[in-house]
């Protein structure tokens, strides 16, 4: 048995020698591209346009997805808004199916062990709440970008494609995750809770970007953004982007504030037109890699 396998293998190797590496590479690319386009063309949602399936999908969504993406798919504390028709990891039926069942590496999107039928129901539901075509945010993104890195000082704390600060969330893909309305509201009033994640028994997460102030034994008071903590130690980033790591025994006091370090940008700082431009810029951020 083993010998026969060896013999078969050597046949393949001989074939490779004959074809040469270049031809082989071409053949593989050709085969792969045919296979891929065939799969993309063939896999369509069998439940597309089925209102009852979409309704069933809404229930499935609540059970399986709402934890991160919010009750009505409008985004949660961990997952993007899915009602906008922006599909960062591909918007075809086959691509959505793959995203749901296999997850997305490098993000918090996990693979989901749900049946094919349930997956198609969820996709039917998402199609029913997302517009086929994306509305473009009004405003001038170029002016918005200038504001972001200039007068509005957003980049002091936020990073976009490797440029900016580290205190606040990286906004390189915020346009695919949040609606323009959400972004505008959050800029005007950052402490407003706009996204609601869902809880599952056994799963808890700390609040993101919680503000903490500690007082050291020698009376120094330091404020920053909490990264992690436990009963005995605390890890946070101060406003100068230093990581501060303490044992709680070495601190006089730890104070938590249920509000963000981000200032509110009222219309005295950022008028409505500027806000529109800034949002238009943010809306265009879809996670593209920095160009050199």
């Amino acid at each position: 048995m083993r010998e026969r396998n060896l013999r078969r293998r050597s046949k393949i190797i001989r074939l490779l020698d004959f074809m040469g590496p270049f031809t082989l590479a071409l053949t593989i690319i050709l085969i792969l591209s045919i296979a891929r386009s065939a799969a993309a063309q063939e896999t369509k949602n069998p439940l597309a346009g089925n209102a009852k399936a979409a309704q069933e999908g809404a229930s499935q969504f609540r059970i399986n997805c709402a934890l991160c993406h919010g009750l009505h798919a409008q985004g949660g504390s961990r997952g993007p808004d899915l009602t906008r028709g922006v599909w960062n990891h591909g918007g075809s039926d086959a691509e959505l199916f793959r995203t749901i069942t296999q997850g997305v590496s490098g993000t918090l999107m996990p693979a989901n062990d749900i049946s094919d039928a349930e997956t198609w129901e969820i996709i039917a539901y998402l199609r029913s709440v997302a517009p086929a075509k994306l509305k473009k945010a009004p405003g001038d993104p170029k002016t918005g970008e200038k504001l972001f890195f200039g007068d509005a000082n957003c980049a002091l704390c936020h990073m976009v494609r490797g440029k900016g600060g580290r205190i606040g969330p990286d906004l390189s893909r915020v346009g695919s995750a949040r609606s323009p309305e959400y972004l505008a509201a959050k800029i005007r009033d950052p402490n407003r809770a706009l996204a609601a994640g869902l809880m599952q028994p056994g799963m808890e997460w700390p609040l993101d970007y919680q503000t903490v102030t500690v007082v050291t034994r020698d009376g120094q008071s330091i404020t920053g953004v909490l990264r992690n903590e436990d009963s005995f130690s605390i890890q946070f980033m101060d406003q100068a982007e230093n990581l501060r790591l303490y044992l709680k025994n070495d601190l006089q006091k730890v104070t938590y504030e249920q509000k963000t370090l981000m200032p509110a940008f009222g219309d005295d700082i950022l008028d409505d037109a500027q806000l529109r431009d800034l949002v238009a810029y943010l809306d265009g951020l879809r996670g593209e890699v920095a160009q050199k």
Partner: protein
Amino acid sequence: MKMRSILFALILVCALVRTSRAQVSSEQLDHATRSPQNWLTYSGDYSGRRYSELQQINTANVSRLAPAWVFQSEVAGKFEATPLVIDGVMYFTSPDDHGYAVDARTGRVIWRYDRSLPSRVIACCGRVNRGFAALGDKLFLATLDAHVVALDAKTGSVLWDVEAADYRLGHSFTLAPLVVKDKVIVGISGGEYGIRGFVDAYDTNSGKRAWRFYTVPGTGEAGNETWAGDSWKRGGAPAWITGSYDPDLNLIYWTTGNPSPSDDPSVRKGDNLYSNCVVALDADTGKLRWHFQFTPADAHDWDATEVPVLLDLNIDGKPRKLLAHANRNGFFYLLDRTDGKFLLAKPFAHINWANEVGPDGRPRLLPAATPSKEGTVVCPAAAGATNWMSPTFSPQTGLLYVVTREQCDIFTALPQPFHPGHPYLGSVYYKPVENKPWGALRALDPATGEIKWEFKYVSAPWSGALSTAGGLVFAGDMEGYLIAFDARTGKDLWHFQTGAPIIAGPMSFSLDQKQYVVIASGDAVVAFKLPD
């Protein structure tokens, strides 16, 4: 001649093995705390106290406690088991129902039992298992595909394997069984899938089912009238945590879980007996002797799922046989365990759904705690003010230590049709953004429910607690610490970072005159002792 002597030696060896005493006798189980070198049941003994008489590790020296060994199962998932230790051998289970016997001195494996599970077992909350039960030379395991299995404790070989229910309909086992006399008792999980709950007893020798107590009464049985229409058929009321046993009264105390669907009482109008109860069952027949329901017509998934703690105290000058129970609904309860008479209820956590529990034992509801379409903020959260993690009672301090979760949920109604084997919840719940969950280990006076001390955790815990005659309480947290507290004051005297959230109960045993404290964490079992 030589041949003959070898043969003779062999016969002698076999004879010795045949007559060797069983590892764990029924009498030993009745008095488990008298052999504190062993840990013979899930809770340490039948009383559910999770208390060890060992005192080598104590308040004076616990600061020097150090790891003795670490066993890595290499099985991913939530490691929820409490190991047993019998005469120097440790037995435990990992996620996915694998079983292990290890040298308790070193953690080296003696045998391993591999469970081959169907790829799609239906378990709400992870492919977890909480451990073995033991009798004689046998170990008992209840599996995620709803089987009960007996293993040879010396080899791990399967002695019998019986199916209790169809796993494809949402039945599963996650608990450590309880052996009572010649029977192994198990309770089913599946309250999220509209099963009909039960507690089963199997003959330890044959695996033959001796009795079954359905936690949802059928047509014509008392209690069936507490379910509208035929809602009882999918009424849930699972029985998914190990019970306690009083040998003198011959009663098994088992707690039951939520009615199905867990958050939509409108489709099952009535009290929904015997969901969210403690039931007292005759150990020989499984017949119901009494019941007490903590949360009638539940809308918040508040299973009564905590090990009942049996203790004897003087109440109003009279000695009473009591059952103490901190419930997921946020109240601490004290009952007379001879007849189930309600004696006391007092909140041990923040609650907003009820004022108090009346003299009749029923909660006085506050309006507007029912799940609504828009969402209703209810405290405690669905996961409860406590959950399956074991409490502990120390006879030394007279205090009951309750692992407490301070958390609220927004309950949003989601009427759901019933499909066998599929989630049947009737709502979804999520965390109010402004409400950061936290938790505490709280020491309660069981006679009054008064909180004597607390230690705050930064997040809501899932670890059980152990008390010892060394004046200590051990408990873990979600940040990965195993912590030793002064049982009298709550001062933290020692902690060790295990590297993963602790979702199991600690236990203790001794070997070679050395006391060990053991906790499961991550994929590992970690054993601690004092340095030589």
